[in-house]
């Protein structure tokens, strides 16, 4: 019943402690788990978006630089000067020395004829009048093409700029698409005089081909990790540079460019492997090209996952630690509680026993008084009868002997009753403990000497183990001896014959403890409960009054000490006498 209560208490305590201590930890862990992932995903989007922007700016800058160089060359040299192959070669060398990435350089007149050319192909004399880009450059003044194969059958793109020289109004007007022209004119109409140069000036085109590998080099730097990719596609979704995983130049990308709006757009969709992938797109080159940078977020989040795993490990270890500590400490507390409860129960039992003995003592004293007075009368009456029998008249009486014997028997039994009552009131006449210097070890030795013969006759060995550290105390030696004598006598009686008694003395805090252990049959629970009660005896009738242990208990209680008994786990009983240490006053 009690055990179930402890178990229930332990379970409740463990559950409550675990809930209180684990709840914050788990909530914190879960919050960190999700918040961290959200933050990292956001960061990844920002990162890929930033990379796309930076890369787009770099490409834009690249193209602008090339366009600017081309413009500068066109503005600083005349048509006649440039159609000279030697001059053009020199200009081409200067351009490549300053900026690089130019594959070739050519001059096209307003008829679309390639008038001069420096580069690896023989393109001189070719006519581009029908090419869409020619119209565009004539209208807009500059042109950057998509990547295409062209005459040379190699992927490339071109930049072309237009130059006006002398008055040749007919050329441009004849070759321009009217719809586009209208559009260009409208956009070019910056002020009231904005459209005059189209009719007044002769145009020629300086055309340069850019090495797309350089562009790819710039883009490739944006490819990060195992899954990162970066490439350019045009509005139709055709690769302008090689993709790392998804296709070659001029092949069709599996990408709908309409999903990407102005500036930088980040979208999430499945990539060619079917994994979730972040795509960041940025339009450049007059929105003709889309720079795409894609990356599987899993790869970018791999460090997060490692951190998260570490967090899980730490939380798991923390949980295990808390659980183990909670169980350990709760068990410790419950065990201590059990021990304290047991001690309390024992203490209560001792108090009950003391109260019982005190009540019995009072009753015994009252009974003793009531018995002693009649006994005193009987004894005096028999004495008187003896006195009378001594007179002459009775000396010749036939039954004188019988009278005297009867009187002697009465006196004998009065004496027996007197002894019982005297024992009940205390073995010694002097019940108040005296205060004298007592060596407990000496007292034990003396008591054992008194009983040695008795023990030897019964073949009982008395072993002594007395501690040296026991001080001389202020106590009553006679009474202590009485207690030891009672206990040793009982031990001998309990053994009967052939056995041993161990007598041990030791100091425990402010008490001297004397243990008397026998290897007799031990005590039943009932005997342990009643052993200090007056008149309780297990000895044969007439052999014991049942007062010895009661008196011993009273003596020890008066001294402020204690006496208790328990069974030896092996065999027999152990009586323990606790004597308070009172240091004698200096004389």
């Amino acid at each position, binding site marked *: 019943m009690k055990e179930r209560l402890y178990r229930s208490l332990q379970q409740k305590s463990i559950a409550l402690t675990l809930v209180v201590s684990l709840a914050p930890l788990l909530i914190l862990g879960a919050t960190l788990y999700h918040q961290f992932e959200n933050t990292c995903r956001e960061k990844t989007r920002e990162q890929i978006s930033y990379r796309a922007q930076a890369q787009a700016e770099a490409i834009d800058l690249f193209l602008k630089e090339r366009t600017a160089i081309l413009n500068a060359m066109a503005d600083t040299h005349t048509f006649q000067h440039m159609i000279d192959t030697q001059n053009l070669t020199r200009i081409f060398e200067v351009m490549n020395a300053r900026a690089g990435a130019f594959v070739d350089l050519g001059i096209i007149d307003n008829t679309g004829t390639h008038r001069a050319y420096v580069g690896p192909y023989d393109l001189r004399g070719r006519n581009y009048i029908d090419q869409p880009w020619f119209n565009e450059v004539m209208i807009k003044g500059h042109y950057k093409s998509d990547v295409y194969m062209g005459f040379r059958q190699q992927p490339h793109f071109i930049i072309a700029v237009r130059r006006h020289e002398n008055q040749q109004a007919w050329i441009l007007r004849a070759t321009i698409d009217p719809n586009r022209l209208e559009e260009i004119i409208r956009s070019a109409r910056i002020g009231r005089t904005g459209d005059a140069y189209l009719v007044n000036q002769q145009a020629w085109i300086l055309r340069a081909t850019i090495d797309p590998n350089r562009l790819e080099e710039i883009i490739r730097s944006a490819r990060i990790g195992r899954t990162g990719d970066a490439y350019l596609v045009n509005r139709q979704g055709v690769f302008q540079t090689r993709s790392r995983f998804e296709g070659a130049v001029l092949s069709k990308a599996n990408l709908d460019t309409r999903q990407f709006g102005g500036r930088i757009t980040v979208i999430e969709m499945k990539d060619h492997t079917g994994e979730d992938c972040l795509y960041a797109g940025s339009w450049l080159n007059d929105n003709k090209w889309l720079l795409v940078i894609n990356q599987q977020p899993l790869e970018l989040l791999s460090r997060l996952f490692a951190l998260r795993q570490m967090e899980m490990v730490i939380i798991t270890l923390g949980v295990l630690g808390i659980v183990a500590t909670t169980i350990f400490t709760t068990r410790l507390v419950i065990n201590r509680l059990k021990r304290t409860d047991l001690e309390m129960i024992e203490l209560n039992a001792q108090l009950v026993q003391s109260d019982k003995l005190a009540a019995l003592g009072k009753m015994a004293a009252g009974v*003793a008084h009531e018995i002693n*007075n009649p*006994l*005193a*009368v009987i004894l005096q009456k028999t*004495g*008187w009868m003896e*006195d009378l029998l001594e007179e002459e008249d009775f000396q010749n009486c036939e039954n004188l002997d019988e009278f005297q014997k009867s009187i002697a028997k009465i006196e004998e039994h009065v004496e027996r009753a007197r002894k019982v009552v005297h024992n009940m009131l205390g073995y010694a*006449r002097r019940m*108040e403990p005296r205060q004298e210097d007592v060596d407990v070890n000496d007292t034990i030795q003396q008591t054992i000497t008194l009983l040695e013969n008795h023990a030897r006759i019964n073949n009982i060995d008395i072993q002594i183990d007395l501690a040296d550290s026991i001080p001389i105390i202020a106590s009553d030696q006679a009474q202590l001896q009485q207690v030891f004598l009672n206990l040793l006598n009982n031990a001998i009686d309990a053994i009967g014959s052939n056995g041993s008694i161990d007598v041990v003395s030791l100091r425990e805090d402010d008490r001297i403890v004397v243990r008397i252990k026998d290897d007799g049959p031990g005590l039943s629970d009932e005997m342990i409960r009643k052993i200090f009660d007056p008149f309780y005896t297990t000895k044969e009738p007439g052999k014991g009054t049942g007062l010895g242990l009661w008196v011993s208990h009273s003596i020890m209680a008066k001294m402020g000490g204690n006496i208790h008994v328990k069974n030896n786990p092996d065999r027999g009983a152990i009586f323990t006498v606790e004597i308070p240490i009172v240091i004698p006053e200096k004389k």
Partner: protein
Amino acid sequence: MDYFSILVVDDEVDFLETLVKRLQKRNIDTVGVTSGEKALETMVNKRFDVVILDIKMPGGMDGIETLREIKRHQPLAEVILLTGHGSVETSIEGMKMGAFDYLLKPIKLEDLMVKLGEAFEKKDLQEQKIRKARIKELIRFPGRVFQQEKEE
């Protein structure tokens, strides 16, 4: 011991009568009374060597009160306390107040006689001491009359 004079004080009449008779049979001058008050009255007219006094006497003066009064009026009379119960504390209190000793009832007459003998010896010694002191005083201050002698 016919020069003994003993007063026995006990409320238990049977005990008192028998003890008195037995002591008288041994030629001891013995008077028995059943209460403290009667004891004090008796002692007004007669000096006793030893008083045997029961401690517990219900109603009227108890043994301790009686002892106090006896010691006030006849300081030289030795008092042996008798007790039928285990109130040893009371007996010890009595000893402190000047009782010679105490005995637990029931007591054998032989044991009582031994105790009486000891008490008488003590009283005798006390009286001898006082007598010697008086003689010394008389030698030093001839004609001086002692207060106690006047009372007597």
